[in-house]
C-alpha cells in the first residue's frame, strides 16, 4: 500500500514537471551552440588579422563598413548553426524519452525568450546604424542574459545561473569597449559549453 502511495506522489510530481516546463532541452544543444560561437569568434579574430588589425596589441580598433557587414554575416551564420544544433539535440532527446515537444510550456518558454531577444536585436541594429560598434558585443550579452533569466520559469531552472553570468559579463564588458570579442567568446562560447556539459551530466 505504501509503495502505491509513494508511486502516486512520484507520478504527480513528474506530471506537474513535464507539463509545465520544457525539459527536453538537451545539454548537448548548449555545448554545440558554444562550439559554434567559439569557432565563429576565432574566425573573426582571424578576419581582423587578415585586415591588418592585431586584436591584442592595437589600442583602438576602427572598423570599416565593409568589415562590419562581414562581421554581421558571421554573426548570423553562428546564430543559425547554434539554433540548428540546438533544435537537433533537443528533438533527439525528446524522441528518446518520449516527451512531447510542441506543448504550451514550450511555446511559453520560446515567447519569454524571444521578447528580450527581439528587443535586443533591434537595439543592436540601431547601435550599428549609428556607428556605436563597440557597444554591440556587450549589448548582445546583456540582452541574451535577460532573455535566459526570463525563460527560466518554463525550463530547467538552473538555466538562470547561465543568464546571470551572461548579464554580469555583459555589464563588465560595457566598461572595456574594444575587448568585445573576448567577452563575446567567453560568454557565448565557453559559458555555453560549460553549462551544456553540466546539464548533460545532471539530466542525462
Amino acid at each position, binding site marked *: 500500500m*505504501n509503495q502505491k502511495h509513494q508511486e502516486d*506522489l512520484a*507520478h504527480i510530481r513528474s506530471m506537474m514537471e513535464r507539463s509545465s516546463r520544457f525539459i527536453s532541452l538537451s545539454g548537448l544543444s548548449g555545448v554545440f551552440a558554444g562550439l559554434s560561437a567559439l569557432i565563429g569568434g576565432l574566425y573573426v579574430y582571424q578576419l581582423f588579422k587578415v585586415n591588418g588589425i592585431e586584436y591584442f596589441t592595437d589600442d583602438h580598433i576602427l572598423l570599416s563598413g565593409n568589415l562590419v557587414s562581414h562581421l554581421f554575416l558571421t554573426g548570423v551564420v553562428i546564430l543559425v548553426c547554434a539554433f540548428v544544433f540546438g533544435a537537433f539535440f533537443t528533438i533527439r532527446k525528446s524522441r528518446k524519452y518520449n516527451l512531447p515537444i510542441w506543448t504550451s510550456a514550450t511555446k511559453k518558454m520560446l515567447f519569454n525568450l524571444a521578447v528580450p531577444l527581439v528587443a535586443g536585436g533591434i537595439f543592436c541594429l540601431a547601435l550599428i546604424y549609428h556607428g556605436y560598434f563597440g557597444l554591440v558585443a556587450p549589448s548582445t550579452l546583456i540582452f541574451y542574459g535577460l532573455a535566459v533569466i526570463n525563460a527560466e520559469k518554463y525550463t530547467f531552472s538552473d538555466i538562470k545561473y547561465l543568464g546571470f553570468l551572461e548579464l554580469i559579463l555583459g555589464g563588465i564588458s560595457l566598461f572595456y569597449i574594444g575587448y568585445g570579442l573576448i567577452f563575446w567568446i567567453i560568454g557565448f562560447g565557453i559559458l555555453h559549453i560549460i553549462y551544456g556539459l553540466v546539464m548533460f551530466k545532471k539530466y542525462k
Partner: protein
Amino acid sequence: MGIIDKLNKDFESRVRLGIMSVLMVNDWVDFTEMKTLLNITDGNLASHASALEKSEYIEVKKEFVGKKPRTSYQVTALGRAAFKEHLSYLEKLMKS
C-alpha cells in the same frame, strides 16, 4: 476513521491523478496535449475526464477552431481544494 479512508476515491486511478497534476500547474489544457502528456488513448482520457467533470473537479470547454472541434480542460476551485487535500494526506501517509 484511519487516514487511508480519507484518501479521495476519485483520485485512485493514475490517469485521474495525472489529469489533476497537469491542470494544477497549467491553465486550459486541450485534449491532444493532455493525451500526449499522459501517454494514454483517446477513450481512456475521455472517460476519466468525464468522471472528473461529474465530480465537478474539472471544467470542460468545447469550441471550434476553424472546422475542428477542440476540447479543453481546466481545474475548478473545488477540484483544486480536493486535490490539495489528497496530496497532503498522501504526504502524511509517507511520513508515518
